[in-house]
């Protein structure tokens, strides 16, 4: 994968993780990976380990926090949740993405874009 593709993938994955946590609330890494596989139809990540690298970045940027807890089947797991800074970042990223998507849509479909 080229560096430009990996940076696009990185940014997209960050947004998906933040959105997943906003939608589903605090969730462990396995749960986040399953959700993204489900939604992205396995198109966005090569393996589930990629999600954990994304989670490290988001923790370092303090957009998400971690806390050890018990899963549904009483297994000890590390749960991730959004921080206030993360919510703001999610909102900003979502607006940016929607703006870009709208512009690209008009560019790719000039007849319907008028």
């Amino acid at each position, binding site marked *: 994968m080229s560096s430009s593709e990996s940076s696009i993938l990185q940014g997209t994955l960050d947004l998906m993780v933040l959105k997943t946590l906003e939608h589903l609330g605090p969730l*462990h890494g396995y749960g986040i990976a399953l959700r993204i596989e489900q939604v992205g139809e396995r198109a966005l990540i090569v393996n589930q380990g990629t999600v954990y690298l994304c989670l490290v970045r988001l923790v370092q*940027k303090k957009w998400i926090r971690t806390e050890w807890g018990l899963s549904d089947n009483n297994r000890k797991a*590390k749960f991730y949740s959004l921080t206030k800074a993360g919510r703001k970042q999610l909102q900003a990223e979502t607006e940016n993405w929607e703006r870009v998507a709208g512009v690209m849509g008009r560019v790719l479909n000039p007849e319907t874009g008028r």
Partner: protein
Amino acid sequence: MLAFFRIIAARIRGFLRPGFLESDFDQEMAAHLEMAEEDGLRRGLTVEEAHRAARVQLGGVTQLRESWRAAWGLPWGLPWLGGFALDARMGVRMLRRSWGLTLAGGLAMTIVISIAAVVFVFLDEFMGRTALPLDEGQRVVALQSWDAEAHRRMNTSRRDLERWGATLQSVEDLGGFQTIERRLIVDGRPAEWVRVAEISASGFRLARVPPLLGRWIAEADEHAAAAPVVVIGYDVWQSRFASDRAVIGRTVRLGEIIHTVIGVMPEGFAFPVNHRYWIPLRLDPFDSLKPAPEGAVFARLAPGVSLDGAQAELTTVGLLPAATAPTSPGARQRASNIDARQRGSDIDARRPRIVPYTFAFTDDVERGELAWQQRIILLLVSLLLVPPCLNISILIYARTVTRQEEFAARYALGASRGRIVVQLCVEVLVLSSAAGATALALTRPILTQIGEIIRRFPELDGSLPFWVDFNFSWRAALFVAGLSVLAALIAGLLPALKATGRVLPLALRSLGSRTGIPLGATWTALIVVQVGLALAALPSAVEFAWGNIRPAILGPGFAANEFLSARLSVDSQSVPTAEPDQRAFGARVRSLQAEVVRKMEAEFGVSAVTVTAALPGAEPLTFIEMEEAVDGGPRVSRYVRANQVDRAFFEVFGVSALWGRTFDGRDFGGAATAIVDQTFVRQVIGAGNAIGRRVRPVPAPGAEAGAWYEIVGIVPDRPANTSQGRMYVPVLPGAHGPAGPIQLVLRGGPDPAATSRRLQEIGTNLDPTLRLDDVRRLDEVLGEMQMSNNLTSYALAIVTLSVLVLSAAGLYALMSFTVAQRRREIGIRTALGARPGRLLASIFARALWQVAAGVVVGVTAALVLHRRLNIEVEGGWHIPGILPAAAIFIMTIGLLSAAGPARRAVRIDPIEALRDG
């Protein structure tokens, strides 16, 4: 940007607790795999299939762990920190392997950094401190009258002081002080001259330090009719009053006035400068306060007011015009402290200014100028790093050339030139950091020693402001760290750039061939510079060091321990300013001096007493010129030591004239005669006859030329072994002014303590304003004067030695590499039958012409330096033949440096050399 710093901070936290993170990761992966296996089992997979599927889905735990560690920057937290740590380990290894470079280079750097650190602490304390160690000390300020045209501080009149106090709203507790010297007499104790602060009552309120006993000076005490009072310091209370808690109400005599003790200040209090006695300030209406350090106007900024705001108000209030100064002769007589140069000065050039209190005690500078002076001095001191670091850079370069294969391999594997340069600089940074750390450890004891030396000289200790504290601060530590980095850059950057320039691709091509890098002009230039630098500085350094230490080693040439010295002066309070009064006073002082001498001879039966302007060995330098030109050449001018002596001087010191005569009655009736010593004749006149020749001090530009003195005698050097010639003239009437201190020298007197007490009693009985103090043996006086010369010589010797050792090491390294580079050639020549003698000759021939070129450069530089330095004026001693001796010495070192590698060269096995080549 915020996210970037958050990542850095997170990585640093990770660096600090890597074990915790690793454990956390392991637990998380274990939980993930468990959940994934359970899902696999629910989907109908077997245990083994679920186990494998979980790991495949994750993407491999080991690979994930490596990526995860890289994301956290483990183990160093920051990627570049890992590289730095590796380079530092290489640097430590280099230091261990090249112990010669470590010792010589480290020693040179440590010496220079220590000197720079001490200078920094001095400057920081004297120039950089802006806050007093008092409550809100940063808000204590001084108000000055500043002459912008003459660029100096002026006296402040009492009327301006009163007007500012009544008018200014931006300051509070405004007052002033001036320092006076008075003879202190406390019941039952010997008299002593002390420094007293005449100070406004507001000074104590400003300092906000409550008295230990009694009270401060109050405004009521400042009235002329009020009873004289004094506040004393803690040390005085302990030493003179035995810590008597009933001291309040006791009386002391200061000069001619009896004062009542009203208060004792706590330990450590010394405001306004370094005072232990405080009396009320009672200025006459037309008096003025001298500028710092003898006096000042102080105040505290009002709450909420800045320095600029206070300056704005002070500028508006301004100074009283000079036209309102007293004009009557009587008023001028009372205005004894008014600076004569201030009278009639241009009002437009004077302006009031308000400055931080400590700044007032620096110099006649504007505030911005002081900061620039400080920076320039620090810059010059930092430049001392350049010579040793250049030497070290040559050694580093010699080593880097032998590491070409290593650099070429790294270059081939993808390291950039910059990365390799950083590596080399970091390796040198290890050495300079070690030198900096050693300098840090040495600076504190050096400062302690300096403090001890200052305290041994009462005059110095008494004038040192109370806010100056030679403690090592964090600012000094930062400065040392900065110097270490600078030293690493100077010593490491140039060889690093040179070693990684166009040479790297060349080295890459020659990898494995062992033919090495061809030498160029740089190599030869390095050897020439190395030799030239060492030779340029060596002769001057040796002459200067020898001149300074020579008197200590060879002695003064007479039994100085048999002589006592004392200082004779008159209390400055009683000196009149009107000229007729001054002449009468001068006659009275000379009469008193003669009476003291007569009483000394009668009291102790001393064999001889003499009076001089300066003690032998402490005469001031004077620039003189001879009248006739020698052999028609230009008039000779030179610095010599000049002293004024009475007719008993030469008899007291047992000195007889070698030619001509010593002083007699004819010389003290107005005749302008002089006696010179042998060194004077040698340095100024040379081979000619000195008797009858005439000499005079060179007048200052624009000043009228003084009288010519005819040389009537030549005497032996006294004291001997000093580098400047001496000229003696008779003590002329009024030469010092009526109250100028003179030196009394007694030969064969009893112990100094008893003599000191008796001298003071004689002085007091004759006249209360006569002051006889500082009684010491002459050998102690000469020893103290010699102390700083000794320190200078030792410091110079250490620095010179380290430069020589560095130069020798550099030459050895360069020669070794030269021989190593020619190993294959030597092997071939030996195999072809070359005789060892011819091989040696070819190696030495190259070394010889390189060293010779360096000697030529060094000799030229040494001659220029020697001429410009004027060594003898600075206290050095000319050593005939020092330059050729130094040149031979350096050439010997150069050739010896080549000898070792040359011997190894002729022992090379030709078969080995050809096989390795």
